[in-house]
């Protein structure tokens, strides 16, 4: 019977984060993430995002995203910070599926888990790795959000109080939005024996479901809406409203995803040969 010792989970989480900063896969994510956001923030620092607040840009944006969301984001909030937020939300699947792909996968493949399991319970490893991945992703988004906030304050006129007010909401929303993706990857990474395969599996599941939903939506929109809840991004439209009320509503779905993906992952991990 497995039992959960919080001290061991904490130690495993700390060690996982330490390893993430030392290992090739951790550094690869951080470099990829860093280079992408350095480039985006560099572009945003030119102030071009302010044009998104104009009616013409709003009309164009409404072709890409929901007009109401476009208006909320770019007219009622700092356009530079909103542009960052929209881009961040849109790229969460790409980065998180990559960053959280190796919770247990490589250790299954290399059999490193055989050094751990005589010392800690499988549930402790499973939860410790999940929390480690959540913290890594969360810290990455906190840092990049703070940088974006500084740039928005510097670039957008009279945006100081708006950005200061929005920054906590943006950070909380981004972190909450990433958690179901990390949970999905905790499921993928217990099935395969390498981080690469785990990432591939996560991306495949995500893309296949997206295509399936799009196809079903043509004939049966109601069924497509229901199936869409299987994807971890179903709360995206709520988070994009950028209001505490909608964020809290969306946050209520996060534990459901974590429990659903986590339960499936744990069921496999607890029974599988390692």
């Amino acid at each position: 019977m497995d039992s959960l010792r919080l001290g061991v989970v904490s130690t495993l989480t700390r060690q996982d984060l330490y390893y993430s900063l030392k290992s090739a896969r951790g550094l690869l994510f951080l470099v990829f993430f860093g280079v992408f956001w350095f480039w985006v923030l560099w572009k945003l620092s030119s102030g071009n995002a302010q044009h998104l607040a104009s009616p013409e840009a709003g009309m164009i944006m409404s072709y890409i995203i929901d007009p109401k969301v476009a208006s909320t984001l770019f007219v009622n909030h700092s356009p530079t910070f909103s542009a960052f937020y929209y881009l961040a939300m849109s790229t969460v699947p790409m980065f998180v599926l990559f960053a959280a792909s190796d919770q247990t996968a490589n250790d299954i493949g290399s059999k490193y888990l055989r050094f751990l399991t005589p010392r800690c319970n499988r549930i402790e490893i499973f939860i410790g790795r999940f929390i480690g991945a959540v913290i890594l992703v969360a810290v990455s988004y906190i840092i990049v959000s703070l940088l974006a906030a500084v740039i928005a304050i510097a670039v957008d006129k009279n945006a100081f109080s708006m950005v200061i007010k929005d920054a906590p909401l943006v950070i909380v929303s981004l972190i909450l939005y990433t958690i179901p993706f990390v949970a999905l990857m905790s499921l993928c990474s217990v099935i395969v024996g390498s981080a690469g395969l785990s990432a591939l599996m996560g991306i495949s599941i995500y893309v296949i479901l997206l295509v399936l939903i799009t196809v079903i939506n043509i004939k049966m929109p109601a069924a497509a809406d229901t199936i869409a809840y299987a994807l971890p991004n179903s709360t995206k439209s709520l988070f994009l409203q950028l209001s505490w009320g909608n964020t809290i509503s969306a946050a209520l779905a996060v534990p459901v995803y974590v429990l659903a993906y986590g339960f499936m992952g744990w069921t496999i991990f607890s029974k599988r040969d390692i």
Partner: protein
Amino acid sequence: MTDSIITTQKLAKSFGDQWALYGIDLSVNKGQTTGLVGPNGAGKTTLFSLLCGFLKPTKGSIKILGHDPDDASLRGRISILPQDAILLKAIPVGKQLSMLAELQGFNRKQALAESQRVLKMVDLATSAHKNADQLSHGMLKRIAIAQAFIGSPELILLDEPTAGLDPSTTDNIKSVIRSLSGSTSIIISSHNLEVIEDLCQQVIILKKGRLHSHEKISDMTARTMALTFRLESDPDTNIKDIFAGLDMVTEVKLGKQGQHRLVVCFKEEAGQLAEIEILKCLAQANIPYREMIRGERLQETVADRLD
């Protein structure tokens, strides 16, 4: 209260339709060093993996120190040198050992001291700061052995502890294992039967996934009441006749073709006189030999049984 540290009943494990282990009933006593031998594919590593909870049994039950292998109360009380597990490449090995020690309940300072202690045991204290990819295969094996000693567990399972080690390092590892025997229950899986014979009191023999035998090594080999010769060539079957005049000779065994082996057993009371007389007989029959040892070797005894 039982003295048994490991008990298995009707233990079986299959991979697909292939049974790696079947019907294993075992009872291993506390405080003993036990060898686990058998040819490749006999199920030694599978048995270790089942005992540590890496694999789940298909049938049967396992009790380690009175608990199921997954029981939380076993954490830190058993350890293993896994045969094919790989250490993390990006972290110094000393740090890795202290990380593992922390998982056994040591605080950071104690864990560091514990990692240094076990590294000293395998004579690698100076390599603590090196990453795994900077160390040779033999050094990595010693690091992996060191991790099995962290926290002085009650039961240590060592899967091929001397494979890939040079003779001098093998002696060092044997000496460490010997120093732990008595206070710790140790099970050693190895193809090197000299190591098993040297360190173990009992031996478990697996063959094709089944338990062939489990007995004391002293019962399997006559350690003092026999001479084993390696001859220049295979002896004739009538070589037994040259000892016909010696009442003290109780049995003459010949090795299989190609082994060039001759074992002459004698009565205990005859002592050294028997050894001299047996050597005289060989000399008179003009039978040269390359090597002579007192007693029988486990290697030949096990090989005979497994054929």
